[in-house]
């Protein structure tokens, strides 16, 4: 694993929303760093500092300067940015 991939995923172990994002990262062969946090909301300040909220998953993509929360948003972003039709469709997704 590269020690400094551009994408960092803040995740909880066994969180289905996080796994949903991981599946898309893997689909596009994207290198990413997993930062695991504890389930308690009060223990997630590192995420809040990044994204402004304590929800997981949160994704930071240094190659585009994007930071976002909510798995549906993240998945949509990944498809639009890294999907096969990303350039041709100008980032549009169905």
């Amino acid at each position, binding site marked *: *694993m590269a*020690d*400094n991939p551009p994408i960092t995923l*803040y995740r909880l172990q066994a969180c289905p929303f996080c796994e949903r994002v991981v599946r898309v990262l893997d689909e596009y062969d994207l290198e990413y*760093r*997993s*930062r*695991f*946090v*504890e389930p308690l909301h009060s*223990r997630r*300040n*590192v995420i809040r500092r990044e994204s402004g909220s304590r929800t997981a998953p949160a994704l930071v993509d240094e190659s585009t300067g994007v930071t976002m929360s909510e798995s549906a948003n993240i998945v949509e972003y990944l498809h639009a940015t890294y999907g096969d039709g990303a350039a041709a469709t100008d980032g549009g997704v169905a």
Partner: protein
Amino acid sequence: MVDLDFEVVPLPDADHPEVGERAPAFTRPLVNAEFWEDRSLDSLTDDGPVLLVFTTMNGAFPATYTWNELRERDWETDFDVSVVGVTISDPYDTTETIRDRGIDYPIFSDPQNGVAEQYGVVHDLDGMTGVTEPRPSAFLLDADRTIEYAWTAAEWPDFPPYDEIEGVLADR
């Protein structure tokens, strides 16, 4: 330590890599007060010398004593070194321990004790069948992982020779 009027139990000789040899490379979850992530030892030594400190499980008193002493010594302020721990305690327990005890250093979590195996410092715990942890040990590594100093416990319990290590750091 207090003076005891009996012999402390000796440990058998350890077969660990010696000064001048390259320390084994590894990757494990590196835990801090807020999260953990896979990190390679090389990603730490790339930034400069590393003092790799193997401790008992977080709950046992030798780990507590060792981290208290390392906090007091605050070597990172005075010397070009990063202090990093290795424990078999899991990441959840380790991040809590780091917070609760105010440990200023990250700790590799290695529940299956493979790093201690690589370093030849496995300690089979009597009375805890199936559980092994590292024998208390300390390795000072330079930026290319060459071992500049090595210590491993000779008896049980045993604690790092802090003054000796500080001398080595001061003489670098």
